[in-house]
């Protein structure tokens, strides 16, 4: 009785006119024909795209700072935070002369996210103390094999902000630069 819309079921036997269904069918056809002129609900996908909300969580991006150095320091907090255990990494120490590549003294030589395990919860993004990982607006990864869904560091890293400015900004999407 929440909506007060309960209706008594009418169990009277059908009259002859009702039992040839004609009138009801004509009524139904009236309803369907009115839909012919309604606005279509379809979004023509590859050409048109639905606009996402600001907090949409798509594929991951490993961030660089303004000089193009990788932010990640391989602390492993993201991997610990991940409920799906999708992140694997290997740390290494930064050698002298590599300061222009990595921002911190320790960096990730190997950083992999298994996109088939990932549930796109965004906890890795929240856990990261270095602003090194965030979830972008790109989505719908496609591949021919399962192996292809384990994204390596090369696929995750954002393009270099100085060398390839356009691609960098595109990958950044509408996320404000946080560093």
């Amino acid at each position, binding site marked *: 009785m929440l909506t007060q819309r309960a209706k008594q079921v009418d169990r009277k036997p059908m009259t002859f006119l009702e039992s040839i269904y004609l009138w009801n069918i004509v009524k139904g056809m009236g309803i369907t024909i009115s839909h012919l002129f*309604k606005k279509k609900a*379809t979004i023509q996908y590859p050409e048109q795209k639905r606009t996402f909300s600001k907090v949409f969580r798509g594929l991951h991006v490993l961030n660089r700072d303004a000089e193009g150095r990788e932010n990640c320091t391989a602390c492993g907090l993201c991997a610990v935070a991940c409920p799906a255990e999708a992140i694997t990494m290997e740390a290494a120490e930064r050698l002298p002369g590599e300061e222009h590549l990595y921002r911190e003294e320790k960096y990730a030589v190997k950083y992999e996210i298994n996109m088939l395990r990932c549930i796109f919860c965004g906890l890795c993004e929240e856990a990261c103390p270095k602003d090194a990982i965030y979830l972008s607006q790109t989505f719908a990864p496609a591949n021919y094999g399962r192996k292809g869904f384990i994204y390596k560091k090369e696929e995750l890293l954002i393009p270099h902000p100085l060398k390839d400015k356009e691609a960098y900004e595109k990958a950044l999407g509408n996320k404000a630069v946080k560093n």
Partner: protein
Amino acid sequence: MILLSISLWFILEKAILIACIIGLSFFIAMYTTYAERKVAGWLQDRHGPNRAGPFGILQPLADGGKLFFKEEIIPLASNKVLFLLGPGLAMITSLVTSTVIPWGAPIVTDKGSIPLQVADVDMGILIVFSVVSVGVYGIMIGGWASNNKFSLIAAIRGASQMVSYELPMGLALIAVLFMTGSLKMSVIVDNQIHGGWGGFLSWHVWSQPLGFIIFFVCALAECNRTPFDLPEAENELNFGYHQEYSSMKLGFYLFAEYINMFVSSAVIATLFLGGYDIPFVNEASWKLEPWLMSLISFSMLMAKISFLLFVFIWIRWTIPRFRYDQLMNLGWKKLIPLALLNMIITAAVMLWLKK
């Protein structure tokens, strides 16, 4: 001997006509599948197929091509000959019915007139009926030869449905024949051309509204269209009689269904909507070139057929399938009494008018 006086020209003329009609049937059937999907989309607030070619008009070709390249599977336990005969029979019968339909005004030349009709036989409409009733063998043979329970049930359903709905169809037709006094299709059309508003008022749909509705409903049932598509009920019988079919044999069945729709629309248009008559104008007074006249009248018939096809599709995407007992009740207990009543009233009125 009259029988031997058939000239070569006559044969050539008919051969060309037959080729045109078969080509036309295939073309229309192809694009009815496209229209079906488009209209279905629109009625459900979608766009329908729109990727193959502009507005998706190449979609039927893509579908046909896909069916051609599918693997051909003939079940081991099936009866091979009958299995192959089924789709062929369905196709042939649906094409044969189009022979007696007058497709346009005859082209009158000084040497004689060329009717746009393959055969203007004296019992034209009866030929349609007899061929349609052979058409049920396409379903029965296909369903039986597949050696599959679902197919068999579908075949039985199809047969009993066709038999039940042929009766009211025939009875509704008799009332029309009372009015025309002839079984010849050309006479039936002729009967509707002369009348008020350029023939519009003498269309049989006005004098026989009940007969028209009964005939239309039965035509739906004969074509196995929703709401009477019980023989192929996807969700209960898994596509019914063509479940075991694949590749172009399945294509034949599906195609035959659309050709059936096309031909029955043509029959309905001829019997009730004035055939190739152009409403609101007296076309005889135009004095146009004969071939142009025929072309215009032919387009008029096509317009009527397209409208009827649209209604077929519209109904399909509006209502769900009948339950089997509802189908039988509707056929035997509702449509047959109504058709009989219609027949008796027509007969009484005709007699009264004659006096």
